[in-house]
Every structure is written in C-alpha cells, then in structure tokens.
C-alpha cells in the first residue's frame, strides 16, 4: 500500500531527514558516513516516490535504504582491506544488523543533536550553514548549491570538509549537556539567522528562482522552537523572521528596485505572519530574559503594527535600540540607534551619534554608515553633502539593488 505523492510530500520527506540520519548515525556510530547514506536515501525517495507513491512507513523505508548504503559501504571497505578471508562472516553480520526493527532507535532529540552538531563552533559560518541545510533541513546538495550560486561539486566538498572538521573534533553523537546547550545555542541561532538573511536578501529579481532559504530558515527555527519550547530567544528569533518576512512582497517595486520601509505599501504586508510573530514575541517577552533576537523582533513588531509610516512610534523604537545597545552592542546597532534618535530628537542628534563610528574600524568604510549619514544630511537640508555621501555609499556597497537605490537618491537630490 502506498499513498500518492502530492504537494505536502516534499515537506514530509524533509521533516524525516534528520530523524533518519539520527537513527542511522546512532546505529552505525559514524555521523559522517550516515549523513552521506541519508542523503542518498533522500535522493532515492525524491526519484522514486513521485512515480511509485509514498511507502506506508516512509521513515522505515528511508532508514532501510540508508542502512543498506552503510552496510554496502562497510562491505566494500572490508573487502578492500582483506580481499579474501573472513569477509563472508562479517557481511552476514552486517545484513542482519540492517534488517532489525527500524523504529526502536528513534529519538525525538535527534534533530536537536544534529543542530548542535552542524552548528559546531569549529566550523566557519558557510560550512555550518551548508551542513545544517543538508543534515537537518533534508535539502539535497544540488539545492543548497543552487541557493548559494556555487557549483554542486564545490558545495559537496564544503559539506564533506565540514564533516571532517566535526570528526577531528571528535564530538560524540549525543545531546550536549544543559550547560553546553546554553553556551552553544547562540551559535545555532546565528546559523539559522544567517540562513534566513541569505534567503531574504536574495529573494528578489533574478534570484527569484533560487530555493527559498528564508522559508527554509523559518521551518528549521519552528522545529527548533518545538524542541526547546521554553527558550525565549528561539521564540524571539522565529518572531523576528516572521515579522521581517511579512514585508517581503512590499520591499521591492516593479523594476525590482528596493522600497524603503517608510514608502512600502503596507497593505501588502502579510497579516498572518505578523500576528503569529507578535503572539510568539508576547509570550517570549513574558518569560523575563530579554535577548538580542527578542529585542530586534520587538522593533520589527512596532513597524509591523503601524498602519502609516508617519504614525511610527519612534520613541518606543529608540528605547528598544537603547536596550539592544546594552544587550548586544555593536556598530550596526549604533547605526540604527542613530536613525531612531534622529526621528525622535532631530537629524542633528543622529549625526552626532554617527560621529562616534568614524573611528570604529569595524564600520568606518562600510557603505551603510555613508548611506545613513546621507539620509540624515538630507533631512538637515544639506543637499550637497547628502549627495556626496549617497554617492560614496553607492560606490561602496556590493549589492546591486542597493547601489541602484543609492545612486537614484543622489540623482533625485541633484535634480532638485
């Protein structure tokens, strides 16, 4: 008996990926090989299920296929090592191992174990992102490669090296202790956030065909929240993603040009995402410990709840940035803080706050500092200086839509 393949099937398959990997990794005690075997099982399912239907026990099917791959791999490894002797006995052992009941070694924490493993501190962000998408997200290497616009072979290498790093660090396949979890959760959340911003940033124009990484990040964060229901920062991150993603349809115009927040058509914002985000945030804030993601979500919520840009509650946003500055200080926070301060106390105040950043090497040459300065100078009425800084910012950004936007701002003022 099989079920037909439909639009929800792909989702089901991806949800199963970390569970299958967890079961196989635990059974064979080899995360790296189990990860490859699971990927092969996923690809087999993607190839066969649409035609042949979904098996009755899809998880069992995947575990079985992955386990076979493992034993095949081990068999050829054994065969390579000792061509003649003792092989028969060993392979028999392996076969029976693969056939044992499949559900016994399921563990609901597997996805969580994998998340902590893939967001290992020894990995660079790009490796952690790639590995998380494959091992936890159940994406194929081809899909991940496509999302980051690199060749599939390059992405495969990146993933294989990431696994090598984990192997070298000899991280055991188990849930980190409560203490370790607290220590390493920020790294996990950061990786999820990076996946979201990569997707959100590239979700326009010629990149529209790319795999929807923003939605994938939301799905993974939603799963993480289900596994850590009492963690306010996980909820905060999910809220931040939803409250940001809600504006997706409004942030670009017909010609794919960027539309700043204050000029977006707010009727295009996704009300459902906004109300879910706000509900999550309200519950998270009630827990007491306010972190970086909850504060950013709170700022996003203030914007999302405002009907018209000119009604924005800037004093509240300013207060939130002041808090954020204390919880997680950094030049980008200062930059946004300056914008909020300018909205409340006037552009001179904002420009004064920006001056502190001129000597900060982390942001001194960054286009965003010039872009914000240009914006505030324009508000001061100093159009010549504003044009100059819009143009500097345009020359410094590496984003094409941003460069077009900034160049147009300069041209608009120059034409006055």
């Amino acid at each position: 008996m099989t079920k037909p393949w439909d639009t929800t099937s792909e989702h089901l398959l991806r949800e199963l990926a970390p569970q299958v990997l967890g079961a196989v990794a635990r059974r064979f005690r080899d995360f790296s090989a189990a990860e490859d075997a699971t990927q092969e099982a996923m690809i087999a399912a993607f190839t066969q299920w649409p035609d042949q239907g979904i098996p009755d026990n899809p998880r069992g099917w995947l575990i079985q296929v992955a386990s076979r791959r493992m034993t095949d791999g081990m068999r050829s490894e054994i065969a390579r090592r000792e061509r003649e002797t003792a092989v028969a006995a060993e392979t028999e052992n392996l076969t029976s191992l693969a056939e044992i009941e499949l559900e016994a070694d399921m563990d609901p924490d597997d996805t969580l174990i994998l998340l902590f493993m893939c967001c290992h501190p020894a990995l660079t962000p790009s490796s952690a992102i790639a590995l998380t998408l494959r091992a936890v997200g159940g994406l194929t290497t081809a899909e991940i490669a496509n999302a980051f616009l690199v060749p599939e072979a390059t992405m495969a290498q990146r993933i294989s090296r990431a696994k090598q790093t984990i192997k070298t660090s000899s991280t055991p396949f188990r849930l980190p202790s409560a203490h370790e979890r607290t220590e390493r959760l920020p790294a996990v959340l950061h990786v999820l956030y990076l996946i979201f911003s990569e997707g959100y940033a590239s979700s326009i124009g010629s990149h529209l065909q790319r795999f929807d990484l923003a939605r994938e990040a939301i799905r993974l964060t939603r799963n993480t929240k289900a596994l850590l229901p009492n963690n306010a920062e996980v909820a905060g991150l999910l809220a931040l993603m939803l409250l940001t993603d809600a504006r997706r349809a409004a942030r670009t115009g017909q010609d794919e040009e960027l539309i700043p927040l204050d000029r977006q058509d707010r009727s295009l914002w996704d009300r459902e995402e906004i109300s879910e985000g706000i509900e999550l945030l309200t519950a998270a804030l009630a827990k007491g410990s306010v972190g970086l993601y909850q504060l950013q979500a709170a700022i996003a919520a203030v914007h999302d709840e405002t009907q018209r840009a000119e009604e924005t509650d800037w004093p509240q946003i300013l207060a939130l940035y002041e808090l954020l500055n204390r919880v997680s200080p950094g030049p980008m926070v200062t930059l946004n803080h300056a914008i909020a301060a300018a909205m409340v106390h006037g552009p001179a105040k904002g420009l004064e706050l920006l001056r502190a950043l001129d000597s900060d090497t982390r942001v001194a040459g960054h286009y965003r500092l010039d872009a914000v300065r240009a914006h505030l100078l324009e508000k001061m009425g100093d159009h010549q200086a504003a044009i100059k800084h819009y143009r500097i910012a345009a020359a410094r950004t590496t984003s094409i839509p941003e460069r077009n936007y900034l160049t147009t701002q300069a041209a608009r003022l120059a034409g006055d």
Partner: protein
Amino acid sequence: MKYILMMNTMRAGHGVPEWPQKDLRAHIAFMMGLNKELRESGELVSAEGLAFPEQAKLVRAGKNGAPITDGVFPESKEFLAGYWIVDVDSPERAYAIAAKASAAPGPGGAPLNMPIEVRPIMSGPPPEML
C-alpha cells in the same frame, strides 16, 4: 562572499612564454594544483583561462547596430589572462588565494609575483535595516 581574482598579465603581441620546458611544466602543475586545492576546499566557483590577445576583438555597435570590430591593440595594453571566482568566508582569504596565485613559479622556478586584481562580486540586497 564571492570574489573574482583577475590575472592581468598578457600583453598584446606576446605569445606563449618562452621558458625552458621544466619551468613551464612546473608553472602549469602549480596552476592545476591551485585549482584542485580550491575545488577541494569548497571555495571554487569557477576558473577560466582566456585565449591569447591575438584573438581579442574590441566590439562597438555601429550606426545601424551592426558590430564594428577592432583588433589592433597597443603593445602596452594589459589583457586578462584568466580568472578565478571563489566563494570565501572573508576578504582576507580571497587575498591569501590571490597571493598564492601571484607567486606561481616562472623561469628558473622563481615566483612570478604577478599582480592579481581582487574584486568583490555584487550580490543581492542585504537584509532590510530595522
């Protein structure tokens, strides 16, 4: 982030380098090795070598949109000989790869120290400012 590493070493009128075979082999092996290394590190997006400037044409549209080609270049003009596109975690890493390519062995096995132009590749917009 992606970077393009451009090797601007070719000059018009100069053909293949006239080095001893041993040195030429070492140079080619080095370049192949570099590409292999970048592929294996999961950083190589693409790498291409370009044909010699003899085959280069400068094209402009004429009055009716028809191509007008121009192929005679001054000897001093530098041409792109080849490029790598890499996807790396930091600009420093892109510079390190460029430095490695720059030091490819030339005649007598001495490093050429060729200039490699490193430029960031434009991307989509960054996340919205809150």
